[in-house]
C-alpha cells in the first residue's frame, strides 16, 4: 500500500463479503422452495427471496468495485484520495440504502421489475450515493500526477454504470417498453460497462502480478474493451427477440451477441499470455490464482454458456427457462465475483501488512468454491435442458415438469453447500488478515 487513504477499500470489501454471505442464505431458501420445503413461505416467499438474492448480488459486486476503485485509483493517479471521510459517508449511505431496500422486500415494498426491484425513493438515494463516489474518484484522478489507461478505463466503466442506471428509472405504461429499457440497464451493465470495470481491475492486477510492461497490457486492454462494446451494445438485441418488438432485433441481436464470447476469449488469452510472458513471479499466489481464474471462468460462464442460448433459433426454446439461471450463475461468478475476490486477495496483505500470500486455506477456498459453482451450473443446466424438452417440445404442463426436475435441485443444494464451504474459507482468510494499518504503508515495492 502506497497511500494511507487506500485503507478505506478494506471496509467496502468487508461489506461486500457480508452481503455475499446473506445472498447465499437467500439462495438456499429458494433451493429448498424448489424441492418442496417451503417452511419459510409465510415470512419469506420465493419472490422475496429471489429479489433479495439478486439485489444483494448487485450491491455486493458494486461495493467490491467501489473498494477496488478506492484502492486502485490513488495508486494509479499517485495521489491520496481527496476525502477519506466522505468515502466512509458513502459506504455508510450505501449500507443504509441496501439494508432498507432488503427489509422493504419482506413487506411487499418494491418495484417488481427483475433486478431493479429497489423502490423509487431509494433509487434517488442510489443516484446521490453513486454521484458522491464518482466525485471522489474522478477528483482524485483529476488531481493526480498521472492518468493511466487502467485508471481511465476503470473510471469510465464506473461513470457509464452510473449513467445507465437512469433509463431504468423512466416509468412506462407498456410492459414491453418497460422491459426494453430495463435491459438498457441490466444488459448494458453486465455485458457492457461492467466489463470495463473488470478489464480495468484485471489490467491493474496483471501489471502488479506479472511485471509485464504497462504499455503492452494497456494496449490489449483497449482491444478487449473495444471488442466488448463492439459486440455487447448491439448484442442487447438478444433480449428483444421475443418480448414484442420488431424482428430486426432477431437479426442484429443474433449476429452481434454471437460475437460476444470473443471479448471474453480475448480476456482469457490475454491474462494467460501475460502470466506466461511475465518474468517476475509475484509472491501473492492466491491473488494470481483468482485473477487468471476469473479470466478463464468468465470465458466459460459468460462467453460459452451465453453463446449456448443466445442464437434466436435456440433462444426461442430456452427463453424463460432454467437455462438462463445456468448461464447467469457461472457468468456472474467468473466475470465479477472472482475479479472482486482477486483484487481483495491482492490488496488485503498490502493493507494489513500480514503476508498470508500462498496459504493452503487460500488455495482450498479457490478450488472448493469453483468446483461447487461449476457443479451448481451443471445442475441448473441439466434441469434447464430437461425443462426445455419436456415443457416446450413434449408439451407437458409447467408444474408436472417442475416435479420431475426437482431432483436436480437436491443435487444443486449439495453442491451449493460445497460452494459455501469455499466461500467460508475465503472469509476465514479475510478475517485472519485483521484490519488495515498505517504501519503497512510502503512495506512492499508494488
Amino acid at each position, binding site marked *: 500500500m502506497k497511500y494511507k487513504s487506500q485503507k478505506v477499500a478494506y471496509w467496502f470489501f468487508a461489506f461486500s463479503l457480508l452481503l455475499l454471505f446473506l445472498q447465499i442464505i437467500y439462495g438456499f431458501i429458494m433451493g429448498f422452495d424448489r424441492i418442496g420445503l417451503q417452511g419459510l413461505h409465510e415470512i419469506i416467499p420465493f419472490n422475496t427471496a*429471489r429479489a433479495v438474492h439478486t439485489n444483494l448480488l448487485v450491491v455486493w459486486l458494486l461495493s467490491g468495485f467501489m473498494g477496488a476503485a478506492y484502492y486502485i485509483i490513488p495508486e494509479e493517479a499517485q495521489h491520496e484520495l481527496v476525502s477519506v471521510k466522505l468515502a466512509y459517508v458513502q459506504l455508510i449511505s450505501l449500507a443504509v440504502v441496501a439494508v432498507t431496500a432488503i427489509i422493504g422486500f419482506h413487506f411487499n415494498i418494491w418495484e*417488481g421489475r427483475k433486478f431493479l426491484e429497489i423502490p423509487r425513493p431509494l433509487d434517488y438515494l442510489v443516484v446521490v450515493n453513486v454521484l458522491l463516489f464518482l466525485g471522489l474518484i474522478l477528483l482524485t484522478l483529476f488531481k493526480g500526477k498521472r492518468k493511466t489507461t487502467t485508471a481511465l478505463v476503470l473510471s469510465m466503466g464506473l461513470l457509464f454504470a452510473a449513467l445507465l442506471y437512469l433509463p431504468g428509472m423512466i416509468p412506462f405504461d407498456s410492459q414491453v417498453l418497460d422491459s426494453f429499457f430495463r435491459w438498457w440497464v441490466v444488459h448494458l451493465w453486465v455485458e457492457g460497462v461492467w466489463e470495463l470495470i473488470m478489464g480495468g481491475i484485471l489490467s491493474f492486477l496483471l501489471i502488479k502480478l506479472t511485471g509485464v510492461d504497462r504499455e503492452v497490457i494497456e494496449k490489449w486492454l483497449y482491444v478487449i474493451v*473495444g471488442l466488448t462494446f463492439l459486440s455487447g451494445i448491439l448484442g442487447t438485441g438478444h433480449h428483444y427477440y421475443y418480448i414484442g418488438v420488431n424482428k430486426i432485433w432477431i437479426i442484429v441481436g443474433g449476429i452481434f451477441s454471437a460475437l460476444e464470447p470473443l471479448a471474453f476469449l480475448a480476456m482469457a488469452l490475454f491474462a494467460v499470455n501475460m502470466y506466461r510472458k511475465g518474468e517476475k513471479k509475484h509472491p501473492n499466489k492466491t491473488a494470481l490464482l483468482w485473477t487468471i481464474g476469473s479470466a478463464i471462468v468468465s470465458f466459460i460462464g459468460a462467453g460459452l454458456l451465453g453463446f449456448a442460448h443466445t442464437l434466436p433459433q435456440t433462444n426461442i426454446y430456452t427463453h424463460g427457462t432454467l437455462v438462463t439461471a445456468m448461464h447467469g450463475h457461472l457468468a456472474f461468478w467468473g466475470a465479477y465475483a472472482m475479479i472482486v475476490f482477486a483484487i481483495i486477495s491482492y490488496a488485503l496483505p498490502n493493507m494489513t501488512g500480514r503476508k498470508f500470500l500462498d496459504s493452503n486455506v487460500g488455495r482450498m477456498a479457490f478450488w472448493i468454491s469453483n468446483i461447487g459453482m461449476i457443479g451448481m451450473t451443471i445442475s441448473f443446466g441439466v434441469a434447464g435442458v430437461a425443462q426445455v424438452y419436456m415443457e416446450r417440445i413434449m408439451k407437458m404442463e409447467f408444474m408436472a415438469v417442475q416435479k420431475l426436475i426437482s431432483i436436480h435441485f437436491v443435487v444443486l443444494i449439495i453442491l451449493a453447500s460445497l460452494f459455501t464451504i469455499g466461500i467460508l474459507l475465503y472469509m476465514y482468510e479475510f478475517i485472519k488478515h485483521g484490519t488495515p494499518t498505517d504501519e503497512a504503508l510502503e512495506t512492499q515495492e508494488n
Partner: protein
Amino acid sequence: MLSKKQARAFFLGGTVVTFLIFIGLTVYSLSSAQDQTNKENLTEQAIRGKHIWEKNNCMGCHTLLGEGAYYAPELTKVIDRRGEGYIKAVLMSPVPWQPNGRKMVAYKMSESDAEDVIAFFKWIGKIDLNGFDRVVSPLAKKNN
C-alpha cells in the same frame, strides 16, 4: 503490430459507431409504424393491472413475455389457457394457492383488482411475440 494509439482508436471508434446504430434501431423499432403491442388497446384498466403486477413482484416467481423467475408458470397467454374465472379465483384466494404443492402468496385481491390484472393479461396476450407463443406449449390452449 498494433500500436496503443490504434488500439484506442479501435475502442473509441467501435463504441461510437455501434452505439449510434443501437440508438437508430431503437428509434426505428419503437416507432408507431413498427408497433407489435397494439398499444391503442392498452386501456386504463390494463395499466392499473400492470401496477398491481409490479407492486406484488409477480415476476419474482412467474415469467411474462418469457421474463421472470422460472418458479411459476409463464402467464403470457394465461387467459386462453385457464380462462378468467380460474385466474380470478387464484388472485382472490384467501389461502395460498398450491397446485402440485408449490405455494403462491395469498394476495386476497378485491374483485376489481383481479379484473384489472385480467385486463392486463388480455392486453399482453395480444402482443406479437415473433413466434415465441407458438413454441411455448403452456401458452396455447390447444396444447393442453
